[in-house]
């Protein structure tokens, strides 16, 4: 297992070297870094899933490679962020080895997550029409990426506490069995928060992600599809109202329904993304051979290095490369859910489920958005998109997942 995982890292680090001879050192640094982190992982959580870290190494190396191809300056920054992310990963592994203790502080953590979101609402700056950024000195920072972690831990711990109560119905309303309202209250609060997020952050992606992750957790915890149905209809109801109240929501949906009605204006980004995929065809135009940059050096597709990085991959690596990336994300999800299946205690199970679902849903939302499968919601592709907050937060997610994995495996041994 160790050998395969290191091998993965080597192969992909080599790939980076071969394709970018000028940055031979970058490949070596990646290899060394992931090697070191891998050894550390072996020491701290020896029983954790051996595939997750190599997949992450592969995704983030490919991401940096793609960013390098778009803008070498951004790639250098992203490399720094990757190092910060790995440091954060090591930090989380080292500090939260007894991760079950997190459950004891669930309300603190939940409040922390909400505080991060409120902070964004109050102090956030609008970029691309969504208010996701706050500035910490010289560094831009996207709190929702971290709030994602906080809220998943909170949901997992809270649902672990109340799941049995939620499955017992005490009263009936309109013929539907309902659990005690006070146990539902925090969840309803979060539903409201999701809508508030949409209103104040103007960010469909993040709110959709939070909400769907919560629904997945509810379903896994209670086994009742009713929650999912009710949750989805509530969200749909909210979404319909928002559609009529907020022009930017309307715009997103209209573009999705028919980007061709204004291919040079509102539909430009999606249309150009579709052109990029079509240009890539089956095998792609080859790294560096795609039509990503205009003569002035700007990217043809706005936000190519962040939200639309997958379009660049689709154009340069073709269907073959793009499907390979999708499969990598699916394998990540499979390993994550495997941890959940194997876990002996409910908190570990719910934590692994929540983290994996958040990860998988985030990937799906943006991959579906750039391919026009679903309406586009501005959100990063985990580990591949350019962006410090995204990569650091996702390394935090990975660390927690590995801790849960190690915890699950240890119990198995006993």
């Amino acid at each position, binding site marked *: 297992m160790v050998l395969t995982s290191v091998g993965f890292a080597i192969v992909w680090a080599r790939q980076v070297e071969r394709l970018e001879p000028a940055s031979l050192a970058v490949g070596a640094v990646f290899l060394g870094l992931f090697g070191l982190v891998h050894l550390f992982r072996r020491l701290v959580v020896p029983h954790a899933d051996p595939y997750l870290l190599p997949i992450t190494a592969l995704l983030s190396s490919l991401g940096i490679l793609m960013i390098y191809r778009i803008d070498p300056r951004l790639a250098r920054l992203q490399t720094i962020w990757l190092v910060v992310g790995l440091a954060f990963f090591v930090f989380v592994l080292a500090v939260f080895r007894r991760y079950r203790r997190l459950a004891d502080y669930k309300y603190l953590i939940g409040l922390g997550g909400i505080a991060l979101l409120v902070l964004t609402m109050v102090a956030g700056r609008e970029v691309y029409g969504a208010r996701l950024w706050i500035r910490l000195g010289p560094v831009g920072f996207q709190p929702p990426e971290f709030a994602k972690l906080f809220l998943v831990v909170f949901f997992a711990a809270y649902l672990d506490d109340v799941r049995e109560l939620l499955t017992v119905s005490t009263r009936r309303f309109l013929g539907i069995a309902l659990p005690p309202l006070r146990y539902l209250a925090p969840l309803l609060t979060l539903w409201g928060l999701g809508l508030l997020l949409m209103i104040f952050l103007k960010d469909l992606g993040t709110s959709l992600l939070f909400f769907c992750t919560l629904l*997945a957790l509810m*379903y*896994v*915890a209670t*086994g009742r599809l009713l929650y999912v149905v009710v949750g989805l209809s509530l969200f749909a109801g909210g979404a319909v109202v928002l559609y009529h109240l907020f022009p930017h929501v309307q715009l997103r949906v209209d573009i999705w329904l028919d980007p061709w009605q204004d*291919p*040079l204006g509102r539909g430009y980004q999606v*249309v150009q993304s*579709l*052109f*990029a*995929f*079509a*240009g*890539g*065809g*089956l095998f792609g135009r080859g790294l560096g051979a795609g*039509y990503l940059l205009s003569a002035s050096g700007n990217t043809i597709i706005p936000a190519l290095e962040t939200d639309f990085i997958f379009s660049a991959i*689709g154009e340069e690596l*073709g*269907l073959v490369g*793009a*499907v390979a990336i*999708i*499969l990598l*994300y*699916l394998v990540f*999800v*499979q390993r994550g*859910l495997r941890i*959940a*299946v194997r876990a002996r205690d*409910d908190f570990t*199970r719910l934590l692994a*489920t929540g983290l994996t*679902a958040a990860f*998988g849903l985030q990937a*799906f939302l943006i*991959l*579906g958005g750039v*391919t*026009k*499968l679903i309406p586009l919601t501005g959100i990063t592709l985990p580990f591949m998109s350019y962006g410090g907050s995204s990569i650091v937060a996702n390394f935090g997610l990975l660390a927690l997942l590995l801790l849960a994995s190690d915890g699950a495996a240890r119990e198995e041994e006993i």
Partner: protein
Amino acid sequence: MQRQVRHLWWLFVIMFAALVGQLTYLQVWAAPGLRTHANNTRAVEQEMRVERGLVVSSDGVLLAANRREGAYYFREYPEAALVSPWLGYSSLRYGRAGVERAYNLELAGESDLLTVRNYLDIIMDRPRRGADLLLTLDSRLQRVAVQALGDRTGAVVALDPKTGAVLALTSSPRYDPGRLDDTWDDLIADESRPLVDRALTGRYPPGSVFKLVVAAAALEEGAVEPGTMFDDDGPWLAGGFRVRNYADHVYGEHDFAQAMTKSVNTTFAKVAVGLGADTLARYSTAFGMSEELPWRLGGGTGRFPDPDAMDTAHVAQAGFGQGEVLVTPLEMALITAGIANGGRIMAPYVVAEVRDYRQTVLERTEPRVWRTPISAATAATLRDMMVAVVKEGTGTAAALPGVSVAGKTGTAEVGEGSPHAWFVAFAPAEDPQIVVAVVIENGGTGGSVAAPVARAVLEAGLR
């Protein structure tokens, strides 16, 4: 709870399978349509990375080449005056026109002709290159035509009547296709419309050169013979319209051949009215007017009015090429070529060969008959009448020493300003090597303004 996690897993499998499905649709199924979508500049961008094929005249002069800037190739035209406007342009911003447009697949290296060559290049890791075009156009003759026309608005077309090969093709005003991106706004705003290729798309009233078509119809139908006598006693009333001769000449008794030599309007009006609108329309079509030209370069088609809508006055005017008859310079050259070639109009062509960059010939244009409007006998009769026009009639300015030239003048009245000057000719009359059609907008009389231009081209073409 394990069960629910498994359900979640299958949900993810379905979601990601949908992603793969959508990607396959985009990158394989819908890809061809998206690649050629009107808003997709990627196709043009990709073509700009390919070294475009060269365009070379029949005597080996380079007419279109490439200049490389970074990853892109830009078009250069070393002989801008010779190639504008028929060769067109190829611009990342403004697209293409003319030969650059009609032969874009070959020039860009996308043609099926290049399939094998392109595969070899991929295997050998060589960059793809477009195919070269060897034209029928002779740069020497082209230069003479350009200089003879000068800055006057109009067009000159020269053909080989036996093959249909275009030997010279020019129209004025011109533009520099190599500087198109810098001058586009001015060219679009220019009222003289330099971007328009008048030789192919300029529709002019033909005036008396159309008498060739009327005479061909009358002779072929047996309505007249060269010796048929007519009497001209001044303006002739046709359906209320007063048919007058040029400068109000009165010619008295004369035969049909002399009517051609002197370009007698009254006589041709009488012949036209005698033939009727239907017959004139039929022969106009037979000569190729208002028909799609059998080549990729396109070009506007002239028109003969709807015969059902013509009254006697209209038919009489059509007899000397006025009224609503319209014709392009190239069409007029093809009509003349039909007479020169014994009644058979050869399909025109400007590209003799398509070659890959290793000079392997991928496609060679074979001459073929396009239309046969009249018999060889009628063509010979017309030829003799046209020889007389240059020898002793209105077209003496086109005469060449030692060579018998056949020609016909045209002076087409227009609403305002001087008439358009026309001249069509071929030489030598007994074994035609070259056909020329000249039109000069608002130039004056065909015999004094257009005939000398035709003479210069004929002389150069026979040298």
